[in-house]
């Protein structure tokens, strides 16, 4: 089966954060990591909570985490629908680990 990674993003204006009051370094670094992951042939889908709330609603595990930890649970990363990381974006090494371990 093809590995499918999804990131459930916290509320923000856009995926790099450049349209907010200050561009966010963590988000900008993420872009680079995702480019590397893409080279491995793995697609990463991203859902922003304020843009794709329906996707959050469809996933009870994600909703449950937000109910327990508020928005601090975000970002949440899932690999083949299993939650693999919460509260921060994965590093490149972590992405590689998720892909190998699946």
């Amino acid at each position, binding site marked *: 089966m093809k590995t499918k990674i999804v990131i459930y993003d916290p509320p923000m204006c856009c995926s790099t954060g450049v349209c907010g009051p200050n561009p966010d370094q963590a988000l900008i670094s993420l872009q*680079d990591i995702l480019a590397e992951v893409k080279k491995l042939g793995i697609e990463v889908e991203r859902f922003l909570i304020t843009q794709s709330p329906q996707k959050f609603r469809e996933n009870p595990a994600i909703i449950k985490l937000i109910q327990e930890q508020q928005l601090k649970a975000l970002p949440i990363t899932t690999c083949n629908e299993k939650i693999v990381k919460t509260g921060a974006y994965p590093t490149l090494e972590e992405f590689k680990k998720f892909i190998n371990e699946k």
Partner: protein
Amino acid sequence: MQTKFYFFSGKGGVGKTTMAASSAVYFAGLGKKTLIVTTDPASNLADVFEQKIGHKVTPIEKTKNLFAMELDPDIATAEYKERTLSPLRGLIPEESFKVLEEQLSSPCTAEMAAFDRFTDFLQEPEYEIVIFDTAPTGHTLRLLELPVEWSGVIEKAAKEEGGGQTCIGPAAALAESKAKFDQAIAAMRDTSKTTFIFVLRPEVTPIYEAERSIAELLKLKITSQELIVNGIYPQSACDNPFLLARFAKQQEFLETIKNKFSIPITLMALEPGEIKGNDSLIKVGKKLYEQALRLKDYQPIKIDAGKDKIAINNFPKVDERIKQLLIPLNDKRRTIFFAGKGGVGKTSVAAATSLWITEQGYKTLLLTTDPASHLSQIFEQDIFDKPTVINGEKNLWATRIDTVKATNEYKEKILAEARKKYAEQRVTAIEEELNSPCTEEMATFEKFIDFATRKDFEVIIFDTAPTGHTMRLLELPVEWSKQIEIKTFTSTGETEVDKITKSRFKEVIDMMQDINQTTFSFVMYPESTPIEEAARAIDELLTIGVPTSLVVANLVLPKSIITNDYWKQRQAMQEKYLAEMDRRFTAPIIRLLLLVDDLIGKDKLKIAGYMLYGKQ
């Protein structure tokens, strides 16, 4: 030719809303189901129709077939928020839900939401005629450019050079919106569907602004345009040297307009009373569409008005109480804002004030935040986006915020940083998102904060854009501070840079709230709509803790010119509204009389300064 969509635009105070409302009443009278929508955040459509309207399509009680709506950016944003977040309501904790709502209140969303609603009306199948009464020019051009810009942004992002992301979501999900934007653009460009009507007065700056707007619209490939020249003095009512001199001026400008523009031009006379309510709108609609005088059939009249007979030389004494509002106290910089409805003379009053303060010996900067400013025309010299010294003055500089330049600088600053640190692809992704129209607002705001925190002038005077636009700019420090706080609610956390940004915003907020540092003043002429608009803005400013400390009544008719019934009627109207101003405003009110000439050039501006604040 009759079209389905009519846009009424032009500089503030030229009679846009009156012309739009009269047209709406006229078309409805022909039995056509008509909708009039105002996109002006400081609309006065309700005043003109003498009934409540608000942010929903409302039938006009006294006119069959006519419906109206006032597009309220705040409510549009609330609706947009509700549409977006309803899937999560009740599902996630209240505290988290509130943070999401707050994030969707970011200035970007407000712009998106108002614009989303606006494009809805461009595909209205239910009405035969849709009339748009638009905000003053700068703001409106922006609204019209947005479909073109967003459509381009989505198209580019869809090619996925960076990450396929745009500021409003992943490109793939936006195909539907793009189709809607493209349809809106096509409708505006179709000469059989849309007519753009610019309203202007026969004066220097409205002519300049009409010229500029027509060129801007041509750039957007919107070609179906017409002009209405409004407020022309009837010759029969001009029977003294002052009025004859003004009449002669207007006729000269009509000649200029005739030579300058090659589109259809309709002439409308100044009405002695206010145009409000159904009966007067029907009358004006008939004049506009059935008895219209076309400029091509009219020969402007040349008369020798002998205006040197009307010199002004008795100025009031300086009022110390007012002076204290204009000069620095306790070694702190004085910041003066001039706000108000478009066309009330903010720029002229701000320029006159800057010359008066400079004469008191203070190093002064006059800055305009109005994208449609005409500061260069008023000072008769080029004013750049860096402080430019005013010819013949040692202590006076002027400058303007150049939106296009500011946006490019802002983009370049962020990209230069990014190039130092990151690989090509990451820079492309950032660049893609920076192409969003939100960047322009961010960049303008950055410039405003830069100037507002400058320490190298003793007095800074802000000549602001018309009310709606300005209120947004002033509320932004408060709103962006909140956006930074959202980050502390989520795991992203607040960074060092965020702390610095927040302290800069706080400095500006504190400065605006301190009456010993900041003088907020509203300019208006004594008529209903500018007073209502100022009163609303004054209340709104109070909600962010900014008090208003000065009111300027402009274009007050001098007693000496009231020599016939026509002007007696206008003066009676002014007296009524001057009394109302006294009742409604707690800040001191100063007056500027109507002058023969437009306030162009330093000599005339200095005279206006003495009339306003006195001469030692």
